[in-house]
């Protein structure tokens, strides 16, 4: 069994120290920003209130963990939303790869660059701006309704932003619109790394462009796709916050509230910090467990893994 870790040749001991030294600042950053904040987990064991020292706060043990696991009001709904968004995310996860392949097949260089630039741009627009834009387009007197009504396709205005049933697909669509171009960059880089001789050989053997894609490009991209998929499985419950936060309203609330948004509401809006931290910890444990499960599966099925 081999791992996908880059094959680094063994260097003399001195060289290794140099490499370690080079990595040290980054390890320090990881330590500082990823491990030191874990101290905050201790808040979940106390009835913490802002301004009161943790030492003076009442120790409550695992009360908040128990509360979340036995919560019959929100837990099921919030988890359901999170899982649905995550699963839809997996369903559409090949899209950036497909987009990159399609873009790679475009022969007109200027057109290709224009498409790539336009598709990448939304990634840099904040969700708040996206919301304003979507309100302008989709509100009942917005552009979308104007066009649809003028064309006679609908008789009364609709508002997808206030449609509970449209939440899952509409938010996924928005996410894809915003991230597709950006996410495809890694695949475009991987495509550039494919040995061109394979395409030439296939061409000599009479393969069509589609066959080349099917038998050369896609298999060559699969290791990248799998690694990204594995990493994303670790983030299964981290479906995001900003997007859902700005698009949440009284109509969409039931379906759009994912775990991160719920933690925000409980922890910061209701000032129930300890409970919020406890939910966050459980989320992290689920993520770690999922990552190891995915890693093991990958090892067994494909013979490759990241850990």
């Amino acid at each position, binding site marked *: 069994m081999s791992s996908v870790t880059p094959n680094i040749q063994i260097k003399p001991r001195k060289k290794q120290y140099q490499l370690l030294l080079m990595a040290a600042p980054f390890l320090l950053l990881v330590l500082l920003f990823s491990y030191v904040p874990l101290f905050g987990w201790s808040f979940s064991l106390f*009835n913490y*209130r*802002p*301004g*009161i*020292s943790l030492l003076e706060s009442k120790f409550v043990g695992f009360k908040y963990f128990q509360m979340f696991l036995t919560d019959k*009001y*929100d837990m099921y709904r919030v988890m359901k939303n999170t899982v649905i968004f995550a699963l839809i995310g997996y369903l559409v996860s090949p899209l950036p790869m497909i987009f990159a392949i399609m873009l790679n097949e475009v022969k007109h260089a200027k057109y290709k660059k224009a498409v790539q630039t336009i598709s990448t741009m939304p990634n840099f627009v904040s969700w708040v701006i996206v919301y304003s834009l979507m*309100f302008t387009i989709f*509100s*009942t*007197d917005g552009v979308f309704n104007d066009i649809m009504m003028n064309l006679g396709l609908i008789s009364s*205005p609709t*508002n997808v*932003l*206030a449609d509970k049933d449209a939440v899952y697909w509409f938010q996924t669509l928005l996410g894809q619109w915003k991230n597709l171009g950006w996410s495809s960059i890694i695949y475009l880089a991987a495509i550039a790394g494919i040995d061109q001789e394979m395409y030439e050989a296939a061409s000599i053997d009479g393969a069509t462009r589609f066959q080349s894609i099917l038998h050369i490009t896609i298999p060559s991209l699969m290791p990248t796709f799998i690694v990204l998929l594995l990493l994303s499985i670790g983030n299964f419950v981290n479906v995001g916050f900003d997007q859902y936060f700005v698009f*949440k*309203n*009284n*109509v969409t*609330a*039931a379906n759009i509230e994912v775990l991160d948004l719920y933690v925000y*509401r409980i922890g*910061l*809006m*209701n*000032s*129930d*910090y300890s409970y919020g931290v406890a939910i966050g910890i459980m989320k992290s444990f689920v993520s770690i467990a999922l990552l190891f499960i995915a890693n093991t599966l990958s090892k067994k099925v494909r013979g490759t893994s990241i850990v």
Partner: protein
Amino acid sequence: MRKFLSLLAVVAMLVAMLTGVVAETKERETLTYGSLLNMNTDKPFYPTKFIKHLEDMIDANIEFIQYDNDTLKLTLASGDMPDLMMVNTASTIIDGRLAVAMDDYLEEYGPNILKFEKRNAIMREFVSGGDGKLYFHTPSTGPEEMTGGVTSWNGYLVRWDLYKQLGAPAINSDDEYIEVLKKMVEIAPKPANGAPVYGMGLHGSQQWAWNIRAMANEGYSNSTCWAYAINTTNTEVIQNYMDLSSPFWSNMRFYYKLNQAGLLDPDSYTMTGDQVGEKAANGQYVGSYCSWYTGGLYDAARKEDPNTLAGIIAVYGDGMSGWYGSNHTVGWSDKLTFITKSCKNVPLAVKFLNALDSDELNRIHYSGVQGEEWDYVDGVPTLFPETVALRQTGGEAWQHTGINSFNNTIGASAYSTAEDGSFYSLWDDPDLKYSGLNPLEKDYADFYGVKYPAQVHYNMVQEGKAINQAGNQTQAVQLGLSVRPDNIIRIDSRMEEIVNRAIPTLVSAADQDAFDAAQASLLEELKAAGAEESWAWWNENWNGTLAKINSLE
């Protein structure tokens, strides 16, 4: 010897000169003050004359720091706080021992603070953690808007030009209001961009918008959560969600009917306040739930025609409540300023709060500087005509005076009596109010034969036909209310979330049966979420605190 004396004289002169220079260039100390308030420090008119005067009084600069809710909480949690902070509840500050008691400094630096005896007594009783010390300062202590301001933000809000066109029919119920809205929509001019016209639209992501209309009109105010409403005539608490006669349910029935009539903007579930304002300015609404969001209509119309009557204004029905008339013995208890334990100069901070309670600064805040904005005429403090004209013109020159810009912080209320026997605010003169009215307000006042629009309501109160908040002690009870236990807070916030999600179902119900079913379902859900447990706590604690305050009175 002569040389030595000369040298001594030169040295003495140099020392004296340098000392003088140092004294002159000595920088003032800076007092930092953090709150959720926007103090407009980035505006060209800042610092205002009021702020400069305040800084001169304490001989220090004041730096305002504006937080949002999250950063304010994080600042408290970090313990690294500015010199002074304003919060909306005292419990965290008391339990976390984040505040410095003022008592040791009051005699020397806070004589004006000591004058507010009742306020201080209630605060020592309820928000001192039991040690009887004074930790907090509140703004606007005393009688508030006794004669109803100039206009009201609540009431049956109508577009005045259209309402007059309809013959200004009397409105005495929500149903009659809907009828009037309907007729106004029918005759309303189409906005330039062809957008549809509605009765009203709300910034409905917040429960505030769905609650406030009937809450204000029917004589209630909100508490720390929307699950409970306080009757402002007797300060009793009622269940806003579980009691079908509550303002929440009045609102739900009203908005349901409004939606049925096609008069509610369907974007009401997704709009922000700014978006409501934009649509109002575009002429898309003929009414409103609160006049704050619809001022843009008049501003936009006035640019085209200075004498336009196209603006939203309140008319009143029998029995309707006005949001004025309270006598806040503890000030606004949701704006508690305290000296933090991080404060570098506690005496200076006490001097700052003392200035806020001073006779001089309160008059400056509400009426301007003596000799510049007002002066005594036959012993009576009287505003200069220029001051009145300046307010009428508005703009940055007016804003630079800082008059009425510090309401959330200044110690006394506008209608507290100054040492000269007049109110701090010199604006409560019907003739003066009349002279300051814009063309729309003037037309309204002339139409009803009053000096200012809100006088219509004030007169109704005097005649016993309407009510105001004269019996309201909400601020005092809220201050004294014990900290809600965690389980009650969780139940209350859960109920709010449940109601948030139920509002669209209720308002957009297809028919009365669907509305009734949604209502029954919501009540069941709230009951299951612990509504009765929460109510038991609120009923016992609210009324208990009210009784204690009454005994202190």
